[in-house]
């Protein structure tokens, strides 16, 4: 994969909380327009990796290159302005802001053409249009997930980081979200990196999968291989 085809390049990334190391030398790449999954058991450091990629957790060693620029030392707000959209575990919508105000937060980044992006978001997630004046904290998990994705999209990102998008959401909505992300990827050329344990979501979205274990990327598998139960058990079972 050449530089101009790479949107995210992570080399020997180390990070942790206090003296506890979590990420112990992560290496991987995401190509422009690719949907890549990072799979692995609970507690192997997947969410920590996402936090470290957006910049909410400083890295202690190694480097992150985004769209050709070294962003390793940049704070999260600077990385967001470069075009990384972050949809964290548990959604983290602003509960006491209305749906419209939550979407406005995404526009902090926006710049030009954000009205068009708002139309796009409301087309993909029509539920948000009818709930514009509702406090976001009163919505269901699935609605909040759609809001969190919509909020990131309004910032017009090149790369979307999705942390466990299926968590706490009913299966029909999971499928709908997966379909929407695939379509966004096709329509906008949006690159997506997501962390997931739900095998249906991985199969329906991922073009490539990295397997993570004990703070390292230990393997790479084609999604088709995950249709085989023995492979899934090896990588995901507790």
């Amino acid at each position: 994969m050449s530089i101009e085809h790479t949107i995210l390049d992570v080399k020997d990334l180390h990070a942790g909380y206090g003296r506890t190391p979590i990420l112990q030398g992560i290496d991987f790449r995401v190509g422009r327009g690719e949907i890549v999954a990072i799979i692995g058991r609970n507690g192997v450091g997947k969410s920590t990796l996402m936090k470290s990629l957006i910049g909410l957790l400083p890295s202690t060693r190694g480097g992150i290159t985004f769209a050709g620029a070294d962003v390793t030392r940049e704070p999260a707000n600077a990385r967001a302005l470069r075009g990384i959209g972050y949809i964290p575990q548990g959604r983290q919508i602003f509960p006491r802001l209305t749906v419209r105000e939550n979407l406005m937060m995404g526009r902090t980044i926006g710049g030009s053409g954000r009205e068009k992006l708002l139309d796009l978001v409301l087309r993909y997630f029509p539920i948000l249009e009818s709930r514009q004046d509702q406090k976001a904290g009163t919505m269901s998990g699935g609605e909040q997930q759609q809001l969190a994705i919509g909020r990131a999209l309004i910032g017009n990102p090149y790369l979307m980081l999705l942390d466990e998008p299926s968590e706490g959401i009913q299966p029909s909505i999971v499928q709908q979200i997966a379909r929407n992300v695939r379509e966004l990827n096709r329509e906008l050329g949006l690159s997506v990196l997501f962390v997931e344990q739900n095998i249906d979501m991985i199969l329906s979205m991922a073009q490539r999968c990295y397997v993570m274990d004990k703070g390292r990327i230990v393997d790479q598998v084609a999604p088709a291989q995950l249709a085989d139960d023995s492979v899934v058990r090896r990588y995901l079972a507790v």
Partner: protein
Amino acid sequence: MLATVIGFLYQFADTFAFLILSSVGLAIIFGMMGVINLAHGEFIMCGAYVTVLTARAGLPLPLAMVLGALTAGIIGMLIEYFVIRRLYTRLFDSIVATWAISLIATQGMLIVVGPSIEGLKTPFGSFDLAGLSFSWYRILLPVIALLILGGIYWLFMKTPFGVRARATIQNPSMARALGVDTDRVYALTFGLGAALAGLTGALYAPTMTTVPTMGSAFIVQSFVTVVVGGADVLLGAAPAAAVLAFIQSVLTASYGQLIGQVGLLLTVIVVVRVLPKGISGWMLRGSN
């Protein structure tokens, strides 16, 4: 009878204005940032001094007042940058630090400017009604207090800055991940609180003696209003000030100043016991 009612309303409005104006700056810094700013009174003093000195140097009074508020705001932002920013996760350290700033400011002014400066005359004069004398300026203050509350509401509810500020209070790291420079939001919010304190000093400068310790005249009322109102200044300040002003005015009219003050403090003790999160905490109960 008429004289009693008018006298009471005047006293109520005057106390209401004083409670609102003395507390807004403190309430914004506490509610939005969780910092208990013990130097609040000194920002008020700063606004008053700048107003008096520039007005006596010939600047028109309204401009002198704006300058007083701006000066306090800029000093607030500098203090945020050099001191408060390092203490956001350390509540008690920030209390000690702001108390130190308060002492340094009071004693520093005493040494540099002296114990008092010549004040300003209260503008607009007075009028008689039902045998009592009323100051036009003191009638204007409650109106200004309400306008300031309206302005704060507009700023935090209707502008992009306000949405970013509220998002930052609810979840600072998520706000940052959406591109918000949260350090800047905190600096501006602290600056706004300091500027409002400065404006309070500016507005009361023509009505009181300008001395380095004048902040202490506001500090009890400001904390009392914030405690009763709770963390949400937009919801809590006006009802808290109305309740407290009513109680204090009734007691002052019936039993004199001292009992009025005692009643004010007793009310706070009762409110802290019954509504530990203040009026706004009670209004927001159950909603997250």
